[in-house]
C-alpha cells in the first residue's frame, strides 16, 4: 500500500511536469507584418509641404524630384 502511494506521488509529479507539454506555443510568429502606408498618401500632421496632392503618386514624385534637384547648387545658383 505504501508503494502505491509512492507510485501515485510520482505519477502526480510527472503529470504536473508534463502539463507544460499541453501549453500552446507562444512564439514571435503571432506578430505579423503590417502593411505600411505609402508616403505619397501624405502625413496626418501640420508639416506637409505644398505643391502636391496627397494620394496622387505622380504629384508626390514630381514634388520630391524637384526638391531632390535643389540639392544641386549648379541648378540653384545661376
Amino acid at each position, binding site marked *: 500500500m505504501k508503494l502505491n502511494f509512492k507510485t501515485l506521488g510520482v505519477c502526480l509529479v510527472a503529470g504536473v511536469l508534463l502539463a507544460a507539454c499541453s501549453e500552446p506555443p507562444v512564439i514571435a510568429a503571432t506578430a*505579423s507584418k503590417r502593411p*505600411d502606408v505609402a508616403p505619397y498618401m501624405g502625413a*496626418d*500632421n501640420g508639416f*506637409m509641404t505644398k505643391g502636391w496632392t496627397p494620394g496622387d503618386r505622380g504629384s508626390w514624385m514630381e514634388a*520630391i*524630384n524637384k526638391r*531632390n534637384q535643389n*540639392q544641386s547648387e549648379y541648378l540653384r545658383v545661376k
Partner: protein
Amino acid sequence: MARMKFICDTERCIECNGCVTACKNENEVPWGVNRRRVVTVNDGIIGQEKSVSVACMHCSDAPCMAVCPVDCFYRTDEGVVLHDKDICIGCGYCSFACPFGAPQFLSKGAFGVRSKMDKCTFCSGGPEVNGSVAEFEKYGRNRLAEGKLPLCAEMCSTKALIGGDSEIISSIYSKRVAVRESNGKYAGSNIFGWSTAYGPSGSPAPTPTPADKIPGAKS
C-alpha cells in the same frame, strides 16, 4: 519608382557632424544611439584627411533582411529598408550582418540588456500611421510623407551628403566630378558600379535571395 539612396562626397565633407546632430534632433534619437555617424580617415594628415557620413545605405539586397530570425524588415516601393519594432526581438544579428554598422541598440541596464533595433529610416517612419505620434515615438519623423527628403541631406551645409532618387543624386554627383576635373582640381572618386548595384533605371527593387537558393540554408 524611385530608389532612395544616399551619397556622401568625401571631397566636400568637412566633418562638421551637422548631419548627425540634425538626425538626432529631428527624430529625437535617444542618448547612446546614433543613426548617422561621420567617419574620418587619415585624421590630422594634411591633404589626406577624408570624412564620410555613414548611416543605413538601404541596400538593394540588404543582409540585415536576410539574417533577421523574426523577419521584421521590409522594403518600401521607394527602396527604403524599414523594420517593425513590434516584431523585432533585439537579437542583434542585423548589426553583425550590416557592413555599415547601421543597426543600433540602446543599452538598457545591467547584464547587457538592450533595446529593440533602431536605425536610419530615410526619414520615412515605420508601419504606423504616417505622421502619427505613435510613429514618431517609435521611428522618428516621416518626412517623405510630408513631401520632404531626409533632414541630414537637406541641411548639409556643403552639400556633401545628398539623398533621394538614385538617378538624380548620381547625376548631381557625376556633374560635380566633371566640374572639378574641368577646373583642374582633384576630382575625387567617380561613381562606379551604381547601376550594377542598384539595377538600371526603372528596374524594381530586388527581393532578398530565397533561402532555398542559398546552399546550406534552411527554408
